[in-house]
């Protein structure tokens, strides 16, 4: 843990809100990214990330300083997002809606932006095929480079459960990817066919 972080944590433990705001500033991106990947919606991700920091602030006395603060925060975020997913059965948005939602206001390189947006959409579609805990395990493994043990601690699961969840999720993602690729190829072939036939 770096020095300013330890200092901020110490000050937060004494009730300093500004010190905790510095921690919020530092960890806003990883927490928001996790929430966004889990929930697939920018506004819900903002709410979830804000709630994560609020819960962390409320329970800061329970934080074990021997553990990584980032891991603790991401664990809170993952649990919150899993709960949110359980509460609502997410309606899968139409691709056009997603494209419209993710298009930025200023696009310096339209081609690059379009391909990034397509990737984002593809990623969201893939992740939507997984249930909450599986999605959290995959996100923590590949975005945050968590080990299986760290994922197990973060999600309150056994290491063997994490292994089997990861295995199942990889298989599901690969199958979904194959299915999407096959659908896309079929579409392209149809477009290439002459309308006369």
């Amino acid at each position, binding site marked *: 843990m770096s020095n300013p972080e330890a200092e901020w944590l110490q000050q937060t433990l004494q009730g300093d809100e500004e010190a905790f705001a510095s921690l919020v500033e530092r960890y806003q*991106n*990883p927490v*928001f990214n996790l929430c966004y990947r889990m929930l697939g919606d920018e506004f819900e991700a903002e709410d979830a990330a804000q709630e994560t920091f*609020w819960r962390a602030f409320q329970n800061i006395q329970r934080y074990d300083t021997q553990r990584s603060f980032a891991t603790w925060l991401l664990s809170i975020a993952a649990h919150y997002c899993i709960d949110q997913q359980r509460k609502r059965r997410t309606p899968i948005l139409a691709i056009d809606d997603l494209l419209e939602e993710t298009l930025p206001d200023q696009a310096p390189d339209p081609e690059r932006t379009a391909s990034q947006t397509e*990737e984002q959409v593809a990623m969201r579609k893939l992740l939507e095929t997984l249930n909450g805990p599986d999605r959290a395990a995959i996100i923590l493994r590949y975005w945050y480079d968590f080990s299986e043990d760290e994922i197990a601690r973060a999600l309150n699961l056994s290491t063997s459960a994490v292994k089997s969840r990861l295995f199942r999720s990889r*298989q599901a993602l*690969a199958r979904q990817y*194959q299915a999407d*690729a096959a659908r896309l190829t079929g579409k392209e072939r149809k477009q290439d066919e002459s309308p006369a036939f």
Partner: protein
Amino acid sequence: MNHQPFNSWLYEDAPLNPAQAEELKLHMQTCPDCTRQYEAWLNVRHMLKTAEVSRPQPGFSNRWLASLEARRLRQQRRQVRITILALAASVLIVLAGLITYFSLTSSLADLFASVIGASTQVAVGFVQIGEFFESLLRFLPPALTTAIWFIIASWICILCLAWVLSVWRISRKGAPSHEELQ
């Protein structure tokens, strides 16, 4: 064709020893299904590893600080609601327990008679206390009697005011925190 253990090796995402790697390579040369799955997984993994980190809109920490007071207020109100509900539930449980106990241990007529008896005793007790104070006031000088009435009325007013203020404060701001009490 038997795809095991090759199919498992594809998705374990763990390093294989040279012998296993060779076996897998040989299997994939003859198994297009495993090859397609492997390619698909490699693509997905690449997407996961290279995807950009999503960032919140600027001013996230300021928004968090701004929402802090509202969240605190909401939590305090929830605590007050929970306390009131818990108190009401305990009163109801005690009442239900008493009713059950009395209905099991005595008949309805006995119960009715004892309730009437107890109410009469309480009423008689109040009347006796009133009579005692009345006789006491008769012996005191009129100025002292007025002063006693004035003190009692003032205290009743102060207590009522304090009660109203506390109810208003708790309903508006919630229970005071530890820091506020210190």
